[in-house]
């Protein structure tokens, strides 16, 4: 069995009195994984540890089974898009990407560079110095230098920053395709709805601790103490249905918003069983029953608030 | 602005509004702003609010600047009045103190002055300063003061310490004070000449770049290289006026001219050194004014 792309075992990192990461353990191998967290949660520290730019104060980091600091050969399989500006701004983008290819020991570095630049739509402006690029073009140049050697693992720190909506869609498409091919893509981003589009799995950090790991739906299911919110659209009889539901034990609270029922329940299964009979008794025709707040943004906000002690 | 918390009290609850409100209190004025800028700039350059690594070099250099005074006073404390201590005291007259620690003064100013101007350019916080009540002129005045204050720590404090120590160890301290009363203003005067020169030159060169490394290199190139060239050429060609290329010791020689025991290896008078010092200082001031005159919010 081959080693996972990234393995963190009890990793902590502190700088003086500041604890940046505390006992974080996870294993990643394949697919697109979103790394979420507030400012100062430890996302950049996690990426820096994965990239070998820092050592853990405690615990162990392994990339494809080795410590990248002591086995630089593993960088053949890693592509990194850091937060920093692209390198060597006085060089043309083509030169930057070709140099990156050569440094990663790509045989036909010129062809590989052209392919990478075409992938990120910079082929037409490849002869311009990177220092003259706009912010979005620099982001794409960084992505090109990370992709040029066809890495198995991509580490991306806010890769969508500065990109216009069309470019963001394009990059998301590239990353999703690479993830579907079996590569491992770890993406740190604040743009949650876009992470949701491309990531099958998320790691959520709060104050340096890993508070959730898995698919959005899976995490949601595990948050048992948080009531589920459900929106019910009816064709008439909304108020009567709301009164019936409120009387039952399955529902915690009910409200009418724009003619639709919004309720909270701690027992979705019981609600599902009780809803049809309640609708019949209230003579209400159910048009739509939809869970609300199961999106990544809501899940993240809840996890964040819970980990910081609010709402307890 | 202040953060007055507004409290809305109910019967069994209260809501505290921590929104920002305008500051309506007394305002301290431009001088206070200037002093605040100078104080915090100089503290920061000395490593305040930074790790111990940022402090160790300025502290070490300050101790080295005090070393001659401490050695002499320590010897007097240990051995009292003897020919050895008398020779030690005679060996370091107040006028020669700056020359003795001239390398320390140079290195100290090289460390301090780029820290005062370069980060503001590099981090692009100049516009933040000029969006307050501080004008470019106030900013420069504050920075000059910020450069002068730490430099006085090594140009004025050590000879004053030596003076105070000599007075304490004198057989008749009051007699020493009255007998050397003219030395005090001379010590202050020469320290101010040296400090102002190094502060202005260092700031002028630092104002030309946003990178501290360049400022350090440029400062040294401006002071050290001509000094060496002047020394080599004046010796080889026997032309003493070439020693005036020695910009680094110029203010020190000018300061020594305030003392009665002035002597110069090239027989160049203190007024000549003083004129050189003033010329270079004026050029430095012009450079600073030109660099910051065009700064806008």
């Amino acid at each position: 069995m081959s080693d996972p792309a990234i393995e963190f075992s009890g990793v902590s990192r502190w700088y003086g009195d500041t604890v940046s990461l505390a006992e974080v353990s996870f294993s990643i191998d394949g697919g697109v994984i979103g790394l979420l967290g507030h400012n100062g949660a430890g996302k950049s520290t996690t990426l820096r540890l994965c990239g070998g730019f820092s050592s853990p104060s405690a615990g162990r980091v392994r990339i494809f089974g080795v410590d990248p600091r002591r086995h630089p050969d593993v960088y053949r399989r890693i592509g990194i898009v850091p937060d920093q500006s692209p390198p060597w701004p006085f060089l043309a983008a083509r030169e930057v990407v070709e140099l990156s290819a050569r440094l990663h020991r790509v045989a036909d570095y010129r062809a590989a560079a052209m392919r990478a630049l075409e992938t990120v739509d910079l082929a037409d402006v490849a002869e311009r110095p990177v220092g003259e690029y706009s912010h979005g073009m620099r982001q794409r140049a960084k992505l090109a230098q990370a992709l040029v050697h066809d890495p198995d693992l991509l580490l991306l720190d806010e890769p969508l920053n500065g990109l216009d909506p069309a470019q963001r869609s394009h990059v998301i498409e590239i990353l999703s395709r690479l993830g579907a091919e079996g590569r491992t893509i770890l993406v740190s981003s604040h743009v949650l709805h876009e992470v949701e589009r491309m990531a099958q799995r998320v790691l959520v950090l709060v104050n340096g601790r890993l508070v959730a790991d898995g698919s959005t739906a899976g995490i949601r299911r595990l948050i048992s103490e948080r009531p589920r919110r459900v929106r019910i659209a009816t064709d008439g009889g909304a108020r009567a249905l709301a009164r019936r539901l409120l009387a039952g034990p399955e529902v915690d609270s009910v409200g009418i918003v724009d003619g639709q029922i919004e309720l909270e329940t701690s027992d979705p299964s019981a609600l599902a069983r009780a809803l049809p009979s309640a609708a019949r008794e209230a003579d209400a025709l159910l048009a739509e029953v939809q869970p609300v707040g199961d999106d990544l943004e809501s899940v993240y906000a809840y996890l964040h608030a819970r980990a910081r002690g609010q709402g307890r | 602005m202040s953060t007055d918390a507004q409290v809305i009290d109910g019967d069994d609850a209260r809501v505290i509004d921590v929104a920002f409100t305008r500051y309506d209190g007394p305002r301290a004025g431009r001088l206070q702003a200037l002093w605040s800028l100078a104080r915090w700039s100089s503290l920061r350059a000395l490593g305040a609010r930074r790790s111990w690594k940022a402090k160790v070099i300025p502290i070490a250099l300050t101790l080295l600047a005090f070393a001659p005074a401490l050695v002499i006073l320590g010897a007097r404390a240990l051995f009292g009045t003897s020919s050895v201590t008398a020779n030690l005291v005679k060996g370091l007259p107040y006028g020669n103190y700056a020359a003795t620690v001239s390398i320390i003064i140079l290195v100290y100013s090289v460390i301090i002055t780029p820290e005062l101007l370069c980060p503001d350019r590099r981090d692009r916080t100049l516009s933040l300063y000029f969006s307050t009540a501080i004008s470019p002129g106030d900013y420069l005045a504050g920075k000059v003061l910020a450069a002068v204050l730490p430099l006085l720590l090594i140009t004025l404090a050590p000879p004053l310490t030596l003076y105070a120590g000599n007075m304490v160890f004198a057989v008749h301290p009051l007699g020493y004070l009255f007998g050397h009363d003219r030395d005090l203003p001379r010590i202050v005067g020469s320290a101010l000449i040296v400090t102002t020169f190094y502060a202005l030159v260092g700031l002028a060169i630092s104002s030309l770049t946003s990178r501290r490394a360049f400022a350090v290199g440029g400062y040294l190139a401006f002071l050290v290289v001509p000094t060496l060239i002047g020394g080599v050429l004046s010796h080889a060609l026997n032309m003493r006026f070439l020693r005036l290329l020695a910009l680094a010791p110029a203010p020190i020689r000018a300061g020594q001219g305030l003392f009665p025991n002035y002597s110069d290896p090239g027989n160049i008078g203190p007024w000549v050194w003083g004129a050189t010092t003033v010329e270079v200082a004026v050029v430095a001031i012009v450079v600073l004014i030109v660099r910051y005159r065009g700064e806008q919010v």
Partner: protein
Amino acid sequence: MIGPIIRLTLRALLRQKRAIMLALIALAPAVTAGVYALARPAGANVLDFYSGIVQQLFVPTVAALIALVFGVSAFGDEREDGTILYLVATPQPRIELVIAKVAAAWVATLVLVVPSLVLTAAFALEGRLTVARLGWPLLGVVLATLAYCAAASWLSLRTRRPIIIGIIYILLWEGSIATFAASAAKLSISAYGRAFVAHALPQAARPVTGALTAAVVLVAVVAIAAWGAARALVRGELP
């Protein structure tokens, strides 16, 4: 892969205003020698002058400062703006990265310093210029600048204030303490560089050691500094 890194670093080092400032510093001894050639009195001892300018100005100040700035900038510029990550996140052995950077800094230094030394010798010595009188000081400058570049590169990876520490070493230790304490001179790179000058010019100040020993010491400094820098790349915290 050392070649492309050397070329890239050379381009970065020599393309900025900093290079112009350093070139002016490098020319200072040549200008001094030129002034001397024009104004020297008849019967002046040109060997004394040449020996003095190489020993007091060229090796310990001009060459040392230029090598320090380039040596620090080779890694330091990229470390300061965080782009060193792009170099480190490659399968290149760390020691090869260090060798490439030090070599680039050294070549950049020699580009400025060697022509100046040749001009200085030509102006100062004129008809008394010989291969030995140019060659030995050149060898001293070449080896001393290599040692300075390696030490400066190591400093740039180990500390946040490499230029300041380098300046303190050059001005305070080498320029002041080592001049009056013979034991301190044994820890001075420029002292070993000046040992080569003394080999060709008897007028030179008494060297700290012979030329062969000086060469061995300087090469050892380079090796230790390079090893230390490679270790810092592995163990140190990168921005």
